């Protein structure tokens, strides 16, 4: 499904270079829910962004399906990202001036206008937010916001979901709902790589990888 080869990345700073990924390899299969753990600053977010085509690594390749992501032009990579990758962030990153439903509709999609509306409604209904569809993020609880963010990530039925601390800002009940949704998505054949500090998500994961000193280690 996704295959990362010899990924290296160095953050360049005016004062010093920080080498956070040191030639790691990773392969995830369809239907797999994988936890990515590591201390703060270990490079979890950097790896997720690199795998999602958002951050060109200093070296290495990311093969998503049949696409070598960083061999594509930026426009082609954006299209590939829209089709195949969904992102979920700790801070939700919902667009504040759009309603929950509009936050789903803003995703780039090849669906027709009517189909998009139906898809948004279907997703919101699946997470129990039909009655909150016209509410803006400021009017939603943290758990509701993350559910909306998850719906947005799943809008185009991506093959890969990259979740960066998706439960980091949620109470245990809300975190449980989000983890259930991700597990359900993986059970349906999707691939999930979830960066987390918490041990709770590990119980739902097929495997857990530790990011230490720029490379991955099984737990």
């Amino acid at each position: 499904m996704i295959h990362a080869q010899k990924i290296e990345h160095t953050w360049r700073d005016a004062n010093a270079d920080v080498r956070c990924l040191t030639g790691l390899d990773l392969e995830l299969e369809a239907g797999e829910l994988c936890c990515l753990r590591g201390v703060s600053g270990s490079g979890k977010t950097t790896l997720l962004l690199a795998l999602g085509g958002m951050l060109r690594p200093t070296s290495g390749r990311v093969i998503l399906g049949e696409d070598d992501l960083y061999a594509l032009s930026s426009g082609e990579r954006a299209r590939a990202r829209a089709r195949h990758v969904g992102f979920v962030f700790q801070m939700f990153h919902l667009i504040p001036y759009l309603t929950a439903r509009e936050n789903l509709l803003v995703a780039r999609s090849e669906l027709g206008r009517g189909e998009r509306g139906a898809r948004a409604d279907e997703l919101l209904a699946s997470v129990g937010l039909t009655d909150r569809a016209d509410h803006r993020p400021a009017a939603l609880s943290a758990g509701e916001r993350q559910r909306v963010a998850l719906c947005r990530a799943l809008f185009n039925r991506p093959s890969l979901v990259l979740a960066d601390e998706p439960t980091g800002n949620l109470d245990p009940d809300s975190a449980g709902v989000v983890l259930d949704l991700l597990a359900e998505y993986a059970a349906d054949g999707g691939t999930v790589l979830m960066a987390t500090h918490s041990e709770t998500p590990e119980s739902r994961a097929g495997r857990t990888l530790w990011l230490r000193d720029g490379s991955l280690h099984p737990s």
Partner: protein
Amino acid sequence: MSLLSQIIAEAMHRWVHTLLLFGALACAALLPVAFHSSGGAAQRETTRLMRDLGYNLRILPKTADLSAYWAQGHADGTLPEAAVQRFSKADDLSYNHLLAVLAERVEFRGASVLLTGITAEVAPETKKKGSMIFEIEPGTIHLGYAAARGAVAGDEIELAEHSLTVAAVLSESGTIDDSRAWVHLSDAQKLLGMPGVVNEIQALECYCADVGVDNLARLRAELESIVPEGQVLRMDAMAETREKQRRMSEDYFAMLLPWVLAACAGVVALLTAINVRERRAEIGILRALGHGSGRIAGLFLGKAAFIGIDGALVGFAVGTWLAVTYGPEVFPETAGKIVIEWRLLGIAVVALPLFAAISALPPTLSAIFQDPADTLREEGP
């Protein structure tokens, strides 16, 4: 979700920012519209005031001695009266308000007065305008302040053995006109025994907007082809005053406008830069959702252009209202010329969104080139 829907939703959400942007763009439309609408009146007012300085050209017979002309107040020699009519048939001339004059010194009540016969003004077909001078009915006389010698309006007077009715005694002007006795040209020709001729054509020089052009040489060349038997004399001080005043009026608006527009462009750029900064996370997430640079650019340039259209409509309305309401107080002579210039609305609606988009371009480019990974890595508490 369409780009326009997203722009409108964001504009309504950040309404203070939108209002400030709208204000800057409305000013960028309002001030030029107000300036242009009332500025046109200002220029017309200047033109009118300068015109009121009087005729600044004298077309005299070629044979006339200029020293004698200044000493006597009239030219020796004559031109055919029909010469003035030739101007009306010519096009693209630097002459206007042509007045045929026959002047000669005569005795009136023991003093020398300058009998001046005039008829209606002639103008080239394409430059017909209202007369600069009063009209005189045949059989009547208008006496200058010094020439009146005790005569009052309504008196019957004898002049060169002809009886004329005093139509008016003119107020003191402090010029040679105080010693004139104005009659209709036909009466002057009869009184002086000079039928069908004039000895001077007075005219007003058309404004030459071309800097560096020798207008006197142009006037002489034009005269040569129309009235070859004449010579043109220009009152340079008057001509220069007219030209300087008119140029000053034009330069004032030409100087002011770029500064106003530059200030508005600066405000639009600053507000867009603030908007870009506030929306860094949004830009990052839109990238993550697969949107390219076109969509990001569209959000900022589209917002500027969209508000630019609104600003153009409101700026035109307010600018026109200001010009129509307050312009007449400033320019009373040409108040009637301050009208709604619909042409400016079309220009504003097209130009202002473009102006807004160009002003918003530098911060928009910074949004496009912003690394989304930088934003998405910044996870706050």
